[in-house]
């Protein structure tokens, strides 16, 4: 057997993909032949000879890549191969295309892969806007249109926003808490490699009979239970994306709880760490619900179960309850890590401690708790039992309070600061405050039952979610990417291009999503391939701005590629930040620290004379200098470090 097929790697993974697919296909054919059934069942929701390989082929890929090699040996009782650290670090671009257990490599893998999905989802959005520029049907037919906006949302939510936050945190978080890596590096690598599988399934749905899944990213039953084959690819893709999320969240939880450097108490954790702790608490408890909902739909489709089919005694509305019990917390899964990023960026570039640090952390926890109690506000007009509406309205409006605390605390952080606005990361953070407040305000309106009855399922909703997910999440993602780009690559990006990217993105974003509020209130429903002629003018404006918004992202791609290769050297700490990731080299050494740092103070002690957040191994001498009594004084409570 050639070495390429024997040793874990991309060749063996592709081979495994084919073998896995063939095994799944063969299994179905053989079982159906034995049972005396028609070999190929090609009813709209059937196709077992496609669905089963769609599940087994990705597993073949993961096995071939080596994701399970260590565990298989362990499980079989065979001697495990001791880790020789060959799976750590990246020495050439090829190292990013193999099973790699280094959290920094995995972070880059996450960010680059999800960004490709962002561009794919963006292309789908551009096609949607091209069709909607004029009333009537010009560019795509209604069936393809429904597939376009469904895949747009699926890519953006499941394969861009949620995982890119996991990617940024993967890179930054272990460094921030002074850990050599994540708690479970192999699980971490597996989590990443499940994402391309999900992307592959979503994309493959375009090429199956009936076209891409077209029941929206919400996939409401019974439209989804009766939809063509593509819907099954959505059901399966979500499983891979969801399993990836859950495994990563567990990894973050264990890492944060057990692997903080000596002295890093909970109240000394940077807010990004708090944010990912909160997010992970949401993911582990909520994500199984969407996995369950999609499995139930898949079973209804392929196995003739009757969870959601009224005609067979199923309960149609229960799909929405289960789906939103995940998907409302998912909104915060897509926002809390961004809150963490904004806190890091603002305090660093404003040269000030975060105002009300403890309340900021508690607000995150408050959001986690409340977000489990608001799901039915997506169902005010669904016909669910009417008594649930008012309690859900009250909790929904109350969740504005911890969110407001965060906004006000950020503003207070800027007060009496030394505000540096040259950095693109800071521009996106400041822009985020404005755009997110708009999204929050429309969210409060939508939380009110009487207003929601009018606005629900209109373009007002589309405007709201894009202000929250684009003006909110995506702005924080860009803030984070610009902020840590020097740390990840060791090079500076071009600030002039960054500023152009920011301003065009802001203008494109406002021009695209502000008018959507107006046409929505006037009566334009969402998810329509065609609309009444009266909305034509505004839709043309929206489409033009959306193309500006799309084109602006190419500036970012160009900036990143060119700066990564040829940008000027960044230095270890270009922003003069205090947290630990900035106290190591850029990019950090393969094992992060020669010696685990000791944490001796809060993470944002800007302007406090002599205060430090952490002491690195090399600075041990500095600690005893009488010039810094504050440091020596606080180490006693820090639990001590290595001598």
């Amino acid at each position, binding site marked *: 057997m050639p070495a390429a097929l024997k040793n874990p790697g991309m060749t063996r993974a592709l081979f495994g993909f084919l073998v896995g697919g063939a095994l799944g296909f063969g299994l179905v054919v053989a079982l159906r032949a034995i049972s005396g059934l028609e070999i190929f069942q090609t009813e709209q929701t059937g196709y077992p000879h496609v669905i089963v390989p769609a599940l087994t082929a990705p597993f073949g890929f993961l096995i071939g890549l080596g994701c399970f090699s260590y565990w298989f040996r362990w499980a079989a009782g065979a001697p495990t191969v001791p880790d020789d650290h060959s799976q750590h670090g990246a020495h050439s671009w090829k190292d990013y295309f193999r099973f790699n257990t280094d959290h920094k490599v995995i972070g880059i893998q996450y960010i680059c892969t999800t960004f490709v999905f962002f561009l794919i989802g963006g292309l789908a959005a551009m096609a949607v806007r091209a069709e909607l520029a004029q009333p009537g049907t010009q560019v795509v037919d*209604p069936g393809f249109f*429904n597939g376009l906006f469904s895949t747009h949302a699926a890519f953006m939510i499941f394969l861009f926003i949620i995982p890119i936050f996991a990617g940024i945190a993967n890179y930054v978080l272990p460094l921030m808490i002074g850990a050599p890596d994540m708690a479970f590096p192999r699980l971490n690598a597996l989590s990443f490699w499940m994402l391309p599988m999900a992307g592959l399934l979503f994309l493959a749905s375009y090429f199956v009979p009936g076209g891409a899944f077209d029941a*929206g990213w919400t996939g409401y039953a*019974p*439209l989804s239970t009766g939809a063509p084959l593509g819907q099954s690819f959505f059901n399966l893709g979500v499983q891979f994306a969801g399993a990836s999320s859950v495994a990563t969240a567990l990894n973050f939880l264990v890492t944060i709880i057990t692997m903080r450097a000596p002295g890093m108490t909970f109240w000394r954790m940077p807010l990004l760490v708090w944010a990912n702790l909160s997010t992970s608490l949401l993911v582990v408890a909520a994500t199984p619900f969407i996995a369950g909902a999609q499995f139930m739909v898949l079973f209804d489709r392929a196995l003739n179960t009757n969870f959601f089919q*009224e005609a067979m*005694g199923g309960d149609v*509305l229960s799909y929405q309850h289960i789906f939103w019990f995940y998907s409302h917390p998912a909104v915060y899964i897509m926002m809390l890590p961004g809150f963490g990023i904004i806190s890091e960026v603002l305090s660093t570039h*404003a*040269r*000030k*401690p975060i*105002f*009300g*640090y*403890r*309340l900021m952390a508690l607000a995150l926890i408050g959001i986690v708790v409340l977000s489990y109690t608001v799901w039915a506000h997506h169902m005010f*007009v669904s*016909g669910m*039992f009417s008594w649930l509406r*008012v309690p859900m*309205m*009250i909790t929904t*409006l*109350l969740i504005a309070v911890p969110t*407001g*605390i965060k906004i*006000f*605390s950020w503003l*207070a952080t*800027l*007060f*009496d*600061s*030394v*505000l540096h*606005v040259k950095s693109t990361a800071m521009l996106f953070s*400041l822009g985020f*405050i*404005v755009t997110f*407040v708009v999204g929050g*305000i429309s969210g409060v*309106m939508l939380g*009110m*039952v*009487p*207003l929601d*009855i*009018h606005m*629900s*399922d209109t373009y007002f909703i589309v405007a709201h979610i894009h202000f929250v997910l684009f003006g909110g999440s995506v702005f924080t993602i860009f803030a984070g990417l610009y902020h840590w780009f020097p740390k990840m690559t060791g090079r500076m990006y071009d600030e002039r291009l960054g500023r152009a990217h920011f301003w065009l993105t802001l203008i494109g974003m406002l021009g695209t999503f502000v008018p959507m509020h*107006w046409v929505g209130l*006037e*009566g334009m*429903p969402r998810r329509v*391939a*065609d*609309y009444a002629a009266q909305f034509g003018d505004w839709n043309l404006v929206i489409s033009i701005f959306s193309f500006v918004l799309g084109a602006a992202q190419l500036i970012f791609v160009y900036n990143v590629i060119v700066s990564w290769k040829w940008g000027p050297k960044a230095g270890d700490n270009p922003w*003069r930040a205090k947290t630990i990731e900035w106290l190591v080299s850029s990019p950090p050494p393969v094992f992060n620290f020669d010696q685990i740092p000791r944490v001796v103070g809060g993470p944002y002690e800007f*302007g406090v004379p002599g205060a430090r957040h952490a002491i690195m191994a090399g600075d041990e001498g500095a600690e005893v200098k009488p010039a810094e009594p504050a440091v020596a004084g606080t180490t006693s409570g820090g639990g001590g470090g290595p001598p």
Partner: protein
Amino acid sequence: MSPGTLLRLFGAIFVLTVVSSFLMLIPNWNGMAGSAEADDIDTLLDVMIVLSCFVFSVVVVMLGYCLIRFRAKPGDESDGKPVHGNTKLEVAWTVIPTIIVLFGAAYSWIVLDDIETEAADQLPIAVTAQQFKWTFEYTDEGVTADELHVPVDQQLELNLVALDVLHSFWVPEWRLKRDLVPILEGNPTDVDNVMRVTPNEEGTFQLVCTELCGLGHATMRAEVVVESEEEFQQWISEQQAEQEQATGGSEAGA
């Protein structure tokens, strides 16, 4: 911060709130109001617009002030003032928003109760949705139509049922919306499928499906005609005559 600065900031917030509220209240955002319920909802929206303008003004004024006042001079490498928090302030911006949103919740609850009050006399109409067609059945009059004709100033009791997938009933001028859920006769269900609305403006409107229902979702619309009681009765009689004619041949003497 000096008392003068504080005063100027409050002044700026006040002025911006007034100006932006004034501008934002000029357009008739929801379009024409065509039902008794619409006015309450529009008033709630107006109140929310003023509140939102206030919140937005606070954020924009504070952000703008910080951007102008505290912008770093080129080459300034100093740090800001090491303020870690202020308990009174933090309590304030926890408690005040809580009061505001609870006020909003109470107000919304009152409006909700108001718009869902049942009148003594209701006109029952069975609304059936299927891919991609609306059907209206006037149960008492024995009339079935694919246009919705209703008398003005009369509360309607719309019994909403879907035959295949979810659909949603929305006449933007009426402001009210409700999903139509597949409910099989005989199956136990707790779906709340009755919507009440009192059209109070005569005219012709569009009924729009607002729940994604498949290929024809975008064009699944129906004509809604709100007319005077006499015109409505006349339309009903015409329909009855028409339907008798249609069925009369086969069921003569039945």
